[in-house]
């Protein structure tokens, strides 16, 4: 019972924050509501016994990505962009498409007969062993990708006259 209550509260913050992300008219608010959603998602991870992932979510996303996005909002404003989010183009059609996708996903989940096996938790120690033994190659490839993304971002955002 208490699990359902916790799940309801976390879902409320996650979905409420998400709804505000797509409707809010101030870009700073948009980014801060995204932080609310991401923290609630970290709570959902913690509820699913994925404590390591919850910690990473808070450190990486709400610590790093949100800060980066706030920087981008303010830098773009200085360059002539604006902090207002400038509204929506075709809200009704977008709402229709999103509603269809939600309906289809919901129908699939209901009909799909998801396996309801006994819950099993993967401990952080096991996760570390999985990452460094069978998944060592993707892990290293990922670090190369991150380096490439960083160099790409620097090249793209660099001033040409500097």
């Amino acid at each position, binding site marked *: 019972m208490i699990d359902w209550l916790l799940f309801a509260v976390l879902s409320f913050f996650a979905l409420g924050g998400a709804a505000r*992300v797509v409707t809010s008219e101030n870009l700073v608010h948009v980014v801060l509501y995204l932080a609310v959603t991401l923290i609630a998602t970290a709570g959902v991870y913690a509820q699913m016994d994925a404590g390591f992932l919850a910690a990473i979510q808070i450190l990486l996303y709400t610590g790093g990505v949100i800060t980066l996005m706030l920087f981008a909002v303010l830098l*773009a404003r200085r360059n002539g962009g604006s902090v207002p989010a400038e509204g929506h183009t075709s809200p009704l059609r977008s709402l229709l498409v999103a509603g269809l996708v939600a309906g289809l996903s919901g129908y699939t989940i209901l009909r799909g007969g998801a396996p309801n096996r006994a819950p099993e938790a993967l401990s952080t120690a096991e996760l570390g062993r999985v990452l460094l033994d069978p998944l060592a190659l993707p892990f290293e490839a990922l670090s190369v990708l*991150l380096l490439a993304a960083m160099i790409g*971002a620097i090249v793209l*955002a660099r001033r040409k006259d500097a």
Partner: protein
Amino acid sequence: MTGPGLDAYLFLAAAMFAIGLFGVLSRRNLLAVIVSVELMANAANINLVAFSRFGVHPWGQALALFALALTVAEVVVGLALVILVSRTHGSLLAGSLRDLKE
């Protein structure tokens, strides 16, 4: 009746994905579009962790971790592009990027 099962988490992720899709389709501002893409990626991650938790495959969490890092790389490049666009076009309206059309 114990705690929420796989279905509950899948519904949460589906709802978040649909909200993010609405944002991607309807937002005019490029930064708001990127933030909405974040929502969709986050929903996919909830699915991965849920499937891992309810015994489909224990590597789901590792995959979610990889997806998290990939999303961060995507955000970094996306934000650099946004700053570049704001510098060259003077605005962040997605509709102002029609140089190839004209």
